[in-house]
């Protein structure tokens, strides 16, 4: 299988057989492209920031006049919303990253990837890691705003949040890719994404505390996978706040399955498992596109 060098000065190339090293290179370059695209696309960076900033400073400020006299015990409503807004930011950014697969298909670039001698898995893993990193980077901008909503810049908090953000965005990108793998145009994808993501954000406890909800709503929040991505972030923020136990009880009640308070580690485990399962679905969907 050599490709000969028949003219002086021509660099002959030999494409190697399938190997783990080759797969890793493929993953790395797909990921690299994802980041280049993100860095080059300032409009997207700004537009995915508008929504969370509106939520945090417009909705949050507006609503805080209503709720500050309630059981929140002097905790700024914006402080409460902060982890929810982080989650929202990484979720939308991750979905956008996943959606770029549909875009690649429309503009033909996907075929360049599909005809290459690499496994579909490498392409999907690269894409999901890329989506995870890009969304986390976007989240860092929100992290920088912590001081404005009375959240301390503590290194342990920042590291915890970064890890949780990456986990959540990886899982969401995998979800998005499994949706996008077989879609032919952008409109369909965004339509479906709106339909899937908005209810999930609403039911995740990103905007309201999970305590004292009516049974039906409480049930819906518990079967919503996003809940388990948002709750650890809120938990992390609240452990770094100096607030009364009543306020913690009201605003950061955690998730309960019957009487069992689901620990943060288990919640993160659920997100990780979901992420891996969705990654598997995405790879399978991709294999079927041939």
């Amino acid at each position, binding site marked *: 299988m050599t490709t000969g060098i028949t003219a002086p000065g*021509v660099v002959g190339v030999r*494409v190697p057989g399938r190997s783990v090293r080759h797969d890793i290179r493929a993953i790395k*370059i797909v990921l690299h492209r994802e980041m280049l695209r993100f860095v080059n696309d300032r409009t997207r960076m700004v537009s995915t920031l508008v929504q969370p900033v509106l939520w945090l400073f417009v909705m949050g400020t507006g609503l805080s006049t209503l709720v500050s006299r309630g059981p929140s015990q002097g905790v700024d409503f914006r402080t409460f919303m902060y982890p929810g807004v982080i989650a929202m930011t990484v979720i939308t950014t991750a979905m956008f990253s996943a959606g770029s697969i549909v875009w690649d298909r429309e503009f033909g*670039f996907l075929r*360049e990837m599909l005809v290459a001698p690499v496994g579909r898995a490498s392409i999907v893993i690269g894409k999901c890691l890329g989506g995870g990193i890009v969304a986390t980077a976007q989240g860092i901008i929100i992290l920088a705003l912590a001081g404005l909503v009375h959240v301390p810049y503590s290194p342990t908090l920042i590291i915890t949040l970064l890890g949780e953000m990456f986990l959540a965005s990886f899982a969401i990108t995998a979800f998005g890719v499994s949706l996008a793998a077989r879609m032919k145009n952008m409109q369909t994808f965004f339509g479906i994404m709106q339909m899937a993501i908005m209810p999930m954000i609403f039911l995740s406890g990103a905007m309201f505390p999970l305590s004292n909800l009516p049974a039906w709503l409480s049930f819906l929040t518990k079967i919503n996978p996003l809940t388990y991505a948002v709750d650890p972030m809120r938990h992390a923020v609240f452990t770094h706040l100096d607030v009364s136990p009543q306020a913690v009880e009201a605003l950061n009640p955690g998730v309960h399955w019957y009487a069992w308070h689901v620990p943060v580690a288990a919640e993160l485990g659920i997100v990780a498992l979901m992420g891996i399962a969705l990654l598997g679905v995405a790879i399978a969907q991709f294999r079927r596109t041939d």
Partner: protein
Amino acid sequence: MTTSEEPAVAVRGLKKNYGDVEAVKGIDFEVRPGEVFGFLGPNGAGKTTTISMLCTLSRPTGGSASVAGHDVVKERDEVRRNIGLVFQDPTLDGYLSAEQNLRFHAELYGVPKEVVGERIRQVMEMVALWDRKDAKVMTFSGGMKRRLEIARGLLHSPRVLFLDEPTVGLDPQTRSAIWGYINKLRHTEDITIFMTTHYMDEAEYCDRIAIIDHGEIVVIDSPEALKASVGKDRVQIQTADDQTAITALAERFGLDAAVREGVVTFAVASGEEFVPRLFADLGVPIRSVHVSRPSLDDVFMNYTGSTIRDAEGESGASAWMRARARR
């Protein structure tokens, strides 16, 4: 170029159906190593469908095919490793620079790290784009994009390069430049080229041509042999009285002439030697004479019964749209 006798591409009974549409109806052919093999046919003939089966992008409905000695269904990875592909529609990432596009390709194909940079420079210099390497691809013209895609297809030194209408929608200069690269390639790389076109004049650059129409191969041969099989030259004359001339041609020379594109046209062996007899014996004043050698157009006409333009009429609009889209 290669001593190996194994065909670069071997196709047997290859078929593809899209629902009720039989896009490819069981074709057979072989491409020899080192050859430039042309697939010539009108829009919708099944050229792209055949290429996508050979490149492992779509599964044949029936029959078998191997590329560089590997089966396109059972050994897809092996096939992919050995081919380069320039699609009919553009497949570049416009937001990346030219060099970034090539680097992406090199990594995806596992081109050894120590030669990546050098190889990228080489293929980009070949298509005269090295000085534009840092420009975003979306700022490129249609012809530049096409050249970049050809460079990318060659980056990993494929054994077989597939080019699906490499020059569609390009101006004559760019077309001839692209043919220049393809010719150069035959001398610098050990490569077999499989290309499709519906430009008659381009088919002449090929060593052998398969004419495909409605999913079937009509004939395969070298351009010269195909022309020889038509055998006759085409003579066009302008006369004072076309009808009398046509009657005279039939009566005195036994030739079947007709008015086409406003001039009396007929086919005759050794046209140039026939012209003096024409002037001597026709009996109708002749204003001008034009003799042309049989072109592939005539070959196509001869084998399919329609000119390639007529055949395109059915879906001419789509060709136009594609040509526009590339700009």
